[in-house]
């Protein structure tokens, strides 16, 4: 249940990132409206949202798939954060920092949970 909540947290961050990206793309006079860079972060946050939703909803997914999705989320988060930095989309940068923190928590908690399960077995 806790792991599921942590995935939901990442999904919420990804959703917020997608909304921020869409706003940046369509905001008239926002500096990056209708640019390739803004379109790129729309795509990257959308992919992140899908991945985190899978993590949140498919708790029974195989470990390799969860690992792959978590690794993908990290790359996506870092890449989106870097792109947002060069787009001067500071809200998106902040969200990606929160997302990174969520990812780290998820990883550490996952390891802690695994260690606890090993101790009980």
């Amino acid at each position, binding site marked *: 249940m806790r792991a599921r909540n942590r995935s939901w947290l990442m999904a919420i961050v990804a959703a917020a990132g997608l909304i921020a990206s869409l706003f940046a793309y369509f905001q*008239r006079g*926002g*500096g990056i409206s*209708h*640019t390739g860079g803004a379109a790129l972060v729309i795509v990257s946050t959308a992919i992140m949202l899908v991945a985190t939703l899978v993590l949140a909803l498919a708790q029974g997914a195989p470990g390799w798939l969860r690992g792959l999705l978590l690794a993908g989320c990290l790359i996506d988060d870092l890449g989106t954060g870097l792109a947002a930095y060069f787009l001067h989309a500071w809200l998106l940068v902040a969200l990606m920092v929160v997302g990174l923190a969520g990812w780290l928590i998820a990883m550490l908690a996952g390891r802690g949970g695994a260690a606890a399960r090993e101790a009980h077995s």
Partner: protein
Amino acid sequence: MRRRALIGVAIFAAAISALAYAFAPSPGAAPAAGGGVWSTFNGDLMAQKYAADIQITPGNAAHLKKVWEVHTGDVSHGSGGVPATDWSATPLFVNDTVYVSTPFYRIFAIQPDTGHVKWVFNPHATLKALTQPEMKTRGVAYWQAANPVPGQPCQKRVYVGTMEGKLYAVDADTGRPCVDFGRGGMVDVNQWNTVNPVWPLSLLQPPTVYGDMLIVGWAGKDWASKTAPPGWVFALDARTGKLKWTFNPLPPNSWQATGTSNVWASMSVDPEHGLLYLPVSSPSPNFYGGNRRQPLPYATSITALNAETGQVVWARQLVHHDLWDYDINSAPTLVDIQKDGRTIPALVQSTKMGFIFVLNRLTGEPIYPIVERPVPASNVPGEQASPTQPYADLPAPVIPDRWPGVSTLADVLSFGQCSRRAKQLRYLGKFTPPSLGAGSLEYPATAGGVEWGGGAVDPATQTYVVNTSSVAMIYQLLDRQKYQALNHAEDRANYYAQSGTPYGVHLTNFLNWLGMPCWKPPYGAIMAYDLKTGRTLWREPFGVVQKWGFYMPPSWGSVTIGGPVITKTGVIFIGASMDSKVRALDERTGRLLWWAQVDAPAVALPAVYTYRGRQYVLFTAGGNSILTPRLGDQLAAFALP
């Protein structure tokens, strides 16, 4: 007895009239700046771009807010039937109204404090790329009668020109045509386009209004062919549109060999001495001069005329036998300089070559030295480049004498493409002539240096501020056979026929396959000079390069189009950069005081005015596809809360 009395009354009346005429301030004119108005493209006739308004200061500029905006709707990205737009219009504030023209040549009259549109005039201009690749305007001109008669129309007039060469006059209060001007309110300058009329004379720059005269230059296609319309300047009666005088920078015996050397940029006027200053462009075609070997002393020059007669008072050629499209492209700034205990009536001319020429505006003699230096020879058959060119070392040129060299980042990311290409190009320093083969590396290129925005001056501190670009291009001549072998080369971007000569030309920015500049940054800067000494006061990278929305480091600066204005309180306002930001800087230090985002690059001079006790700064955010594809139709006003 009665008859004698009548004669006496008549003589008395005539004497009174003569006295009144003698002491009248002027027969009519664009009002001077300094009273909170922005009456000409450059703010005033002396092209100082200086506002005497005092409400916005370096201390409070950070609090500026957008108070209104107008979207004209006149924007095109070129995807439909209308060419892309290039909105470089400086708004005017006169007659308690903001006036601005759009790239579709409509005039908007706007309430200065609310942005409410009072009226719109539509000349229904032809929206075709007749001479320029884009629909383009740099604004309107304003004239008012010395003593406007209440109730009479067209005592105050706004003028707009079109790409097809038509000049319209409308009533400043109503927007209705002034039917006494030309034919029904319109003068077609092409009626005088009788020598080599291969294209129309495009009126993109607003006329210069001096007294009751409109002084009109035009733009064309000086890259297209050997022969072209020679660069007539027309002085028209502001009321009737009748021709008062003409001036042509090219002698008649050259008209079968060349053309242009026209005045497409704004002009300046010294009202005290009655002198009109023309920034004269290069002769045609731009990049080959084997057809025009005779002396053309007014080509690529500053030429001073008697404003009343059009007679030449003095001229100084700033590029000999121009092969680089180094048009003199902005109105010289007129200012009195305190130097060595004397007050010198000066003229400051920024240039595409990066030189800042400071001359005595009454004589044309240099205030700071100009020296003739040997420059590279041409290796193109038929061409004979000038052996020397004028250099001005003080004030320091706005860009370095040598090109900055290959950018390591651009070279690495293109797997060495930049350095390989650089080795193939002919480069022997500034003024390397265009060449055959791989072509010549040109630095600065036709984009400057300083573009048509020119510089601004604070006449109190005698500080001159100017923005610049650092652009390297490749000029490659192609012999006629090779040029014609290219499929429809004339329709391909950056290929120009130069018909009537042995060579076409291919012009490209020196970029790698990713679109990155192959030369080292910074790509743009802004700087200030002390005109009393010629010393550089400060210099900073200006603007930010933006590609696909991504902002590059501020230390790279941005290529700039447009120019600065200065206020009495020492605030510089400028758009000009490709990042679609408008900025306020401190005149003393160049420090950024404020910025705001607008819809597109503000590639026009801003206008500064005060209305009902509140100071406004007004930016036209229209963009220019040379900088970035982002175009707009926004007029944005900023003021303190």
